[in-house]
């Protein structure tokens, strides 16, 4: 029922998403044991192929793999060696030739995991590609909301920040909509992608206040200071004053609204210091759930019998 690769939420239907979330629920229990390890993926090799620097997502996948007893190898080709000619596909094929059972890919350009999946036998899991998709982040966010709110159907989710450049926004829009939530985005006009309402069935706001009215979930996105200030927004200070989430602005949302952030947080920019650490902020829950969710992903995508290689399937 589930495809070979996990390239994006776009490819999943509601029942597949729910199966992943249900599986994550079982996995969470393993993390709560004294010995946080099960033999499920013993003898399997999983490669973290990260062309773009990442600490959190990579660590999360690594821990998830290790809790399932897989051998997890981190491979981070330098940007310079892959930029010119040394093809991404060659790198991926080389790793597969070392008998990888799954390849987890992150790349700064949209579509690279799909290109790699086209040439590899091993399942490919997208750990973030350009501004396209970041499916495991969206799944762990849905998991977290379901855990706290008990459901997703009928909720209103407001995503605030640089929607234009955000893969987290795209995957979350797709995932929450598939699970029956209403999704809104709020951003400065320069950070709202063209035709977003028709393309994704969301409502776009430039007024944070309107976007937050009646929201059950408020998700702030990271602003990349270096890249954006001056080009898409006049300054970080102006952004923070207009779109930064703090307790005062949170008043516009529902009383029991929760606050999320995919991390890493620019404290005092997208999120006040206080919300980063305290309820209704659930940021650390997201991180914790990330491991369980990625265990579920590895179990479902990397846990199948290896394809016609050694022959002795488990």
């Amino acid at each position, binding site marked *: 029922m589930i495809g070979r690769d996990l390239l994006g939420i776009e490819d999943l239907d509601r029942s597949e998403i729910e199966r992943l979330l249900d599986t994550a629920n079982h996995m969470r229990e393993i993390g709560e044991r004294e010995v946080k390890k099960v033999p499920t993926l013993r003898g399997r090799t999983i490669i973290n192929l990260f062309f773009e620097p990442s600490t959190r997502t990579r660590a999360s996948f690594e821990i998830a793999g290790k809790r399932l007893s897989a051998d997890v190898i981190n491979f981070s080709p330098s940007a310079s060696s892959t930029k010119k000619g040394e093809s991404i596909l060659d790198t991926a094929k080389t790793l597969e030739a070392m008998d990888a059972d799954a390849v987890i890919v992150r790349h700064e350009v949209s579509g690279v995991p799909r290109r790699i999946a086209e040439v590899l036998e091993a399942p490919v899991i997208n750990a973030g590609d350009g501004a*396209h998709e970041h499916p495991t982040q969206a799944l762990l966010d849905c998991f977290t909301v379901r855990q706290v709110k008990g459901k997703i159907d009928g909720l209103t989710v407001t995503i605030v920040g640089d929607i234009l450049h955000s893969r987290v926004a795209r995957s979350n829009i797709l995932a929450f909509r598939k699970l029956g939530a209403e999704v809104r985005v709020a951003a400065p006009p320069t950070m709202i992608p063209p035709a977003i309402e028709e393309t994704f069935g969301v409502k776009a706001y430039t007024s944070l206040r309107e976007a937050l009215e009646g929201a059950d979930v408020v998700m702030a996105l990271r602003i990349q200071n270096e890249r954006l200030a001056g080009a898409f927004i006049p300054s970080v200070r102006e952004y923070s004053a207009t779109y930064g989430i703090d307790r005062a602005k949170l008043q516009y949302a529902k009383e029991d609204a929760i606050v999320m952030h995919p991390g890493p947080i620019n404290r005092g920019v997208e999120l006040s210091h206080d919300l980063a650490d305290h309820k209704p902020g659930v940021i650390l829950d997201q991180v914790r759930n990330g491991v369980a969710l990625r265990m579920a992903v590895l179990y479902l995508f990397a846990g199948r019998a290896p394809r016609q290689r050694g022959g002795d399937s488990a």
Partner: protein
Amino acid sequence: MTRILVRGGRILDPAAELDAVGDLLLVDGRIAAVGGKLRVDDAQVIDAAGCWVAPGLVDLHSHLREPGQEYKENIGTGGRSAAAGGFTAVACMANTHPVNDDPAMTDYIIDRAKHDSPVRVYPVAAATKGLEGKVMTEMAALLAAGAVAFSDDGKTIMDSGVMRRVLEYSKLVEAPVITHAEDRTLVAGGVVNEGPVSTRLGLPGNPAIAEEVHISRDLALARITRAHLHVAHVSTRGGIEQIRRARELGIHVTSEVAPHHLTLTDEAALGFDTNAKVAPPLRSAEDRDACRAALADGTIDAIATDHAPHALHEKELDFREAPPGMIGFETALAVVLDLVRRGEITPLELMRRLSTHPARILRVTGGSLAVGAVADVVVADPERVWKYDPAKGYSKSVNSPWSGQTLTGRVTHTLVGGTLVYDVERGILA
């Protein structure tokens, strides 16, 4: 005396407003007789029953990659590919290595073409040295060497002062200045059309307004300089509107559209297929329809392929790094025949835009089947169904969005100066 009788085809000669079934006689490289049933005893006969017989196609816009990037294409392979597509003449852009900005380079290309290419090759020289957009090239010397037009093509001249002087100076040589009209500051690194597709894929968008703004600037400069501006590969409704208005004002502007902009949309990029990456990008369905309508109503003068070969290893890069462009000679006619089949344009008007108009814009031989004219002729079967496999074609490269597709309409014979250079059954003959 060499005599070739093309028998029983539908003769389409836009220059003479002729659309009738009949014979065509070529003697010693020139058209000797047109129309009716001709009785010639000692001629080689080409049976054209059920086929169109028209002046050879003339391509205003191609990249032959020689010198410098022969791993993508050279003048010989590009010329053969053009012949197989029914082209008898192609203009090649100046972005070779080194750049064609010097009479010696123009001379070199013409010399190579004489030896290696079955079709006529007309170099388009750079408008500025090194395509840097700063110093004008020696247009008079380049023209004398054989250049037919001037363009920095993809390295759009962003400095309006330089563009103004280029246009002014071009009047000395009476050759068109070809503009690849995209404002780079608005393109801003965009790799697909800005809109639902760029939003869905999370790829940087290249907005239609980048073309419209730049066409608008160049038309204003053409108006004050009274030079001949030719707008390459128009792709947007807004750009077309600018050109339509300029023509009404009497500005000397001509323009071309590429087969891919007439038939494909940005949705071709949805699977991140880098063969669908091209500059300007494939646009919305609305833009595509505007291009079709403008070609039919005459606002756009010509169809040009923008044949742009790239090697497999280059197109295998990710969507941002892969170079833009697609090959187009061998598929062009089949692809644009769609407009005829849908009743949007007549066969005669289509051939005018593939042959007569481009020849006139470049002021070169071709585009006519008048008695006495040079015998550059294409024979094509508009109903022939074939599967396109670029690996079996003549280009060195295979970057085509139509790869593996079944196409309808195929060139069966190409004659250059009365010599049969391509026959679909036997391949390239010269």
